[in-house]
């Protein structure tokens, strides 16, 4: 005989996707257990740091007043980094602050607040509990196993991150192809608030997000980032695992190279590393979104492989929010209908793909393949740097028209005109 469930829903992982799912379901009067393996929520979580916040504000309308956010991003800096030069596009816009569009967060501070909202809504938070796998009966998931303990529920929500051992345990995920994964290596560098504001031309709680491509990864596919927090910087590299392995590079050495780069080091001057972390990043986009529903279980957030990287914007946390919202409503309906089978829960995938985030996932389906083009990481930045060098370096040779300069530099560059055309067209289609 099947034992009575302890809860309507067990959510595994108190990150953003798990907390949003738990909050919505608890708010709707369901009994919810929120299980977290860290001693406290957020203690196992690491993100680059930029959260596109509008979606989460729909869940918590007073988010920006109450949650521990770091800074509102009003400045986006795209930097093409070369060994001897850097070319930047510095985009600042007051409209990004009204209404607020993106904020920086530090997860060890932000996630405890989210989990607290879940508890206030009535969810039971169980911290310091590692879930080892799913409990199955007659082929369906009926709960989770943690050491000697079992927790039974009508529905299990796997929100256990990019490595999702739970989704693997339920047979929903296999070994991920390496090109779907990237390794993020990050440090938090403390810097006095006043100095940080001066250095990055910020007032009040405004912040800047740097996206860096080129000579920051020693040729490994990926890029660098630097985000301002209140009184620290989040700085790091994201390295495609297949390329990291193929090139035999050492991840810590690549990280060192980025931090010591002559165009990055001055930004960190006087800072102190207060934390060092790493995290796998889902990079496959829509192609990585696997099965997200089985009998008695749904998969949300990173565990479902939900991220979008367009090169200009890197998104994960807002997709986690969207999946949590979609999962909570589908799980709620399935519980109402008394059908938590795969069919009963199938509304989750439909709702997820129909949401703005899900539609974005489809819009950018070709972005991951586009970003695998090697030229993106050295040749274009170098070409642009060389053209600008000819423009600004008055070396007593007669000036030439810009178009002639560009043509000459293109001839010297490994980039061919047909590459430019191909990559340009692919970029237009993918992004």
């Amino acid at each position, binding site marked *: 005989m099947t034992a009575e469930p302890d809860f309507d829903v067990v959510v595994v992982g108190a990150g953003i996707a798990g907390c949003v799912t738990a909050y919505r379901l608890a708010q709707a009067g369901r009994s919810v257990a929120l299980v977290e393996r860290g001693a406290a929520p957020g203690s196992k979580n690491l993100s680059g740091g930029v959260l596109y916040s509008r979606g989460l504000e729909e869940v918590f309308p007073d988010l920006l007043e109450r949650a521990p956010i770091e800074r509102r991003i009003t400045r986006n800096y795209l930097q093409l980094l070369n060994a001897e030069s850097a070319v930047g596009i510095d985009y600042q816009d007051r409209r990004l602050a009204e209404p607020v569009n993106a904020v920086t967060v530090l997860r060890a501070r932000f996630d405890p607040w989210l989990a607290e909202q879940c508890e206030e809504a009535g969810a039971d938070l169980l911290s310091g509990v590692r879930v080892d796998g799913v409990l199955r009966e007659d082929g369906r998931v009926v709960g989770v196993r943690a050491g000697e303990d079992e927790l039974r529920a009508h529905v299990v929500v796997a929100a256990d991150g990019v490595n999702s051992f739970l989704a693997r345990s339920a047979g929903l995920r296999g070994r991920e192809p*390496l090109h779907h994964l990237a390794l993020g290596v990050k440090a938090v560098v403390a810097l006095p608030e006043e100095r940080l504001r001066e250095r990055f031309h910020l007032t009040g709680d405004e912040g800047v997000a740097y996206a860096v491509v080129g000579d920051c990864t020693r040729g490994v596919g990926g890029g660098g980032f630097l985000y301002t927090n209140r009184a620290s910087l989040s700085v790091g590299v994201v390295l495609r695992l297949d390329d990291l392995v193929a090139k035999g590079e050492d991840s810590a050495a690549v990280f060192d190279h980025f*931090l010591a780069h002559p165009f990055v080091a001055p930004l960190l001057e006087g800072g102190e590393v207060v934390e060092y*972390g790493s995290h796998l990043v889902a990079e496959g986009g829509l192609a990585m979104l696997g099965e997200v529903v089985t009998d008695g279980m749904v998969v949300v957030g990173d565990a479902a492989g939900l991220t979008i990287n367009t090169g200009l914007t890197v998104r994960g946390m807002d997709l986690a929010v969207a999946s949590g919202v979609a999962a909570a409503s589908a799980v709620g309906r399935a519980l109402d209908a008394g059908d938590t089978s795969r069919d009963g829960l199938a509304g989750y995938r439909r709702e997820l793909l129909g949401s703005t985030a899900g539609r974005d996932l489809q819009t950018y389906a070709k972005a991951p393949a586009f970003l695998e083009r090697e030229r993106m990481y050295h040749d274009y930045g170098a070409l642009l740097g060389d053209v600008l060098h000819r423009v600004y370096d008055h070396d007593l040779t007669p000036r030439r028209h810009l178009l002639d300069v560009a043509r000459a530099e293109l001839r010297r560059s490994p980039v061919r005109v047909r590459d430019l055309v191909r990559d340009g067209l692919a970029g237009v289609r993918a992004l």
Partner: protein
Amino acid sequence: MRTTSVPDRLAANSYVTDEEQPHIRVDQELARRTGCGDRLIAVCPAKVYSREADGTIGVEHAACLECGACLAVADPGVLEWTYPRGGFGVAFREG
């Protein structure tokens, strides 16, 4: 900023080390046969893996940042890798 070594950086982190149950095990024989040791050593940003004098792969599990990169790049079967027991392991204070 003065340059920092990996051990310096890790020293700034907060860890609750599980002395009783290491969460990483290497099948040394399989690691040797597949030759994936160098890959583990290079990919891990915390330098958990090292080459011992006898050619085997050393594991300093206490330094682990729990990212899972080693498991993703290891040949199947080489690593037995789980998260540390509940409450143990790295405890991020910033994130």
